[in-house]
């Protein structure tokens, strides 16, 4: 497990450096998958890597109010909802900055057809809200995210992205 955490830390580190952001700490729990389909290590690693990268895209898109930045990482419901939120932010003259501080990720479901993977992520993050360029609020938060990812041509994409009530 430690090896995995280090591996994903390294993967994310690359992504974060590219984005010029401070890197979050990442822990990847061993998969706890109920189902007939075996989850290969490579698949699990790819899913977690792509999911963590999606946070970067989401953060940029919400900060710049640019839904076009979601396209490489989000599809379906997740993309529709985030794009709508961005529209609402833009209409209200606000934008938000999400900075993820830590992730604790675990794969919990691999569908028998291999076409979706569900994971949970205990995330700690900061959110800052700006009215135009004036910061009106900042908050440190935690949430358990439930995420469903589906395969696209070259990567896994986020299809459902939701905080679970705790």
């Amino acid at each position, binding site marked *: 497990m430690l090896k995995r955490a280090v591996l994903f830390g390294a993967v994310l580190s690359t992504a974060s450096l590219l984005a010029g952001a401070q890197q979050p700490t990442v822990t990847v729990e061993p998969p706890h998958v109920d189902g007939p389909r075996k989850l290969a290590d490579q698949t699990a690693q790819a899913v977690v890597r792509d999911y963590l990268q999606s946070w970067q895209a989401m953060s940029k898109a919400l900060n710049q109010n640019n839904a076009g930045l979601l396209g490489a990482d989000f599809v379906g*419901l997740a993309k529709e909802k985030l794009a709508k939120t961005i529209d609402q932010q833009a209409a209200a003259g606000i934008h938000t900055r999400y900075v993820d501080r*830590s992730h604790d990720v675990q794969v919990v479901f691999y569908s028998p*057809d291999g076409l979706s993977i569900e994971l949970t992520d205990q995330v700690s993050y900061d959110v800052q809200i700006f009215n135009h360029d004036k910061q009106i*609020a900042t908050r*440190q*938060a935690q949430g358990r995210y439930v995420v469903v990812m589906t395969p696209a041509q070259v990567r896994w994409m986020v299809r459902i992205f939701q*905080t679970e*009530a705790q």
Partner: protein
Amino acid sequence: MRAGLTILAATFAVAAAQPGAAQNLTLPSSIAAGSAFTVQTQGSGNGTLYIVGLGQAIKRDVQLGSTVFFAAGSLYGAGQYTVVLTGAGANETEALTVTPSPDPGAVSFLARPSRLPVGLQDGITGAVYVFDPYKNLITKPENVSFDLTGPDGKTQTRTVPTVLGAAWTELDSTAHQGNDKFVARIGSVASTRVVGQVPGDPCSLKMTASPAGQDVRLQTDPIRDCSGNAIPDGTIVTFTENYRGGESTVDVPIKRGIAQVEMPAHPGATISVASGVMMGNQIRWER
């Protein structure tokens, strides 16, 4: 890591309680998606109320000191929200969690494969994700009923509880060719898929031979799978004749349930028949 989370939790508690000494903002900590709720403000003058999360962003001008009413359906995206009140010296931040509505509104149902042979154990899989009417994933456990009704009208049923909104099952394909109706149901919400069942491999293969002028006419009995379903027309049957060290082979498609062909009638020839992995009988032609 755990220690870090504890520190962050403590920090969050402080952040949520600050910055005003007086509490200017009173609201529920949690609501169900789409339900009506109110936010009580304190003070006087004009202010602005923001409710911002990944699922929605709402901005509303308010009169400080008033109760702000949000009608049913105003806030429907499940998730965590930051609620901010600004204006007339007020600047207060609170957290609000929106949980999925408890009533299922939609099921995302994927059944695989769309077509398979009859009589295959655990051959059909179904997986669902359960959503509320606002397309939020319902993460609390719900029982999903999977019904597979075969062409003969018999139904296999499995009831499976969801875990974090997902449930799956495996069912056997039935003995009869045709279309199965595969239904995933939760409460009054259902989604149906059709799974085609085709005959399996031939169960046995038997041919007979009779003279036809200079040739021998070879004809199979009706070819069926082990459940008695006719093997589809067009399936290839191979007849092979061996005579004095030579071999000739003819591939014939099944037509109207049988395969037939005429081959040279060499006395002493050995003729065999096969289809796929199934070997049929062998005949020695003596005439």
